[in-house]
């Protein structure tokens, strides 16, 4: 699927994932608690987590805000048909702009779907998101003249499901 980047985890790392995928314990020494449930010492646990961060198995450790609760009630999936020769440069540029929380290149599905660049834009209301996407379009136009052939934005009208990934316990 083009999403596999190799690498592997051993049984200890898999247990670390299972122990923390629902979140870290809110106690003064959260890693000590995780270490106890994984069955390793805390120093080994910290070294393992550090290694998983360095290898990108863990992207970061932190808080995920509920966009709605912090006032970002509108989210628009902006989609762009960008010249293939310039799509990576445009993607890096768009990903760095304010309000863009994800930015990916994906395959077109012609004839239904001409877009190859996806950028999720969050804002305090729909008008703000539309304004922001208009600004992104203008900036792409300035920086990469002629690269964008077409664009659209898909607003979400309902969350039908949101659970995230759940790995099973090691077998």
């Amino acid at each position, binding site marked *: 699927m083009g999403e596999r980047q190799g690498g592997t985890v051993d049984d200890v790392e898999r247990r670390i994932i299972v122990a923390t995928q629902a979140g870290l314990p809110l106690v003064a020494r959260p890693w000590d608690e995780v270490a106890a449930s994984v069955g390793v010492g805390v120093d080994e646990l910290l070294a393992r987590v550090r290694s998983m961060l360095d290898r990108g198995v863990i992207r970061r450790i932190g808080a*995920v*805000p509920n966009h709605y609760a912090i006032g970002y009630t509108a989210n628009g999936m902006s989609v762009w048909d960008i010249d293939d020769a310039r799509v990576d440069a445009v993607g890096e540029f768009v990903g760095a702009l304010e309000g863009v929380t994800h930015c990916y290149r994906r395959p077109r*599905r012609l004839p239904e779907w001409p877009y190859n660049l996806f950028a999720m834009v969050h804002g305090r209301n729909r008008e703000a998101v539309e304004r922001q996407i208009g600004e992104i379009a203008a900036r792409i136009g300035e920086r990469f003249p002629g690269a964008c052939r077409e664009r659209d934005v898909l607003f979400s009208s309902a969350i039908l499901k949101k659970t995230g990934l759940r790995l099973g316990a090691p077998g």
Partner: protein
Amino acid sequence: MTDTMKRSGAPVELDATDRALINALQGDFPLTREPFAEVAAAFGLAEDQVIARMRRLLDARVLTRFGPMFQIERIGGAFCLAAMRVPETDFERVAAAVNAFPEVAHNYRREHALNMWFVLATETPAGIEDTAARIEATTGLPVFRFPKEREYFVEMKLEA
């Protein structure tokens, strides 16, 4: 599983310290024995105050999660965005059928001819194709696959 998006909802009162904590903790949480004490020191708070605020923010669902964020692609797993064109009259049945798959991690209704967008998360890349095929068989509708070909650098920058 279906919960309608709350456009206003019951607002949770956030003070300046809550907002500062949310902003700071979208970055890196210290990988040390007493990480909350470090965060507390940076904010001039007591450790137990930081823990209590985090608990409140999580309980109130201002934060949906607090902990390590995993990239399952790096351990052999796979994600894939997918979309379907679902007839409006059949939307609820199809949504229920799609949501019943444990591999469907998120599912959004969107305003477009392709009106259902979901993310498949599986422990192997082969699981993506297998799941998409089973969703097609169950619903009788084509599933458009939009695997990520490249991810561009994105900073965390939603300010609370």
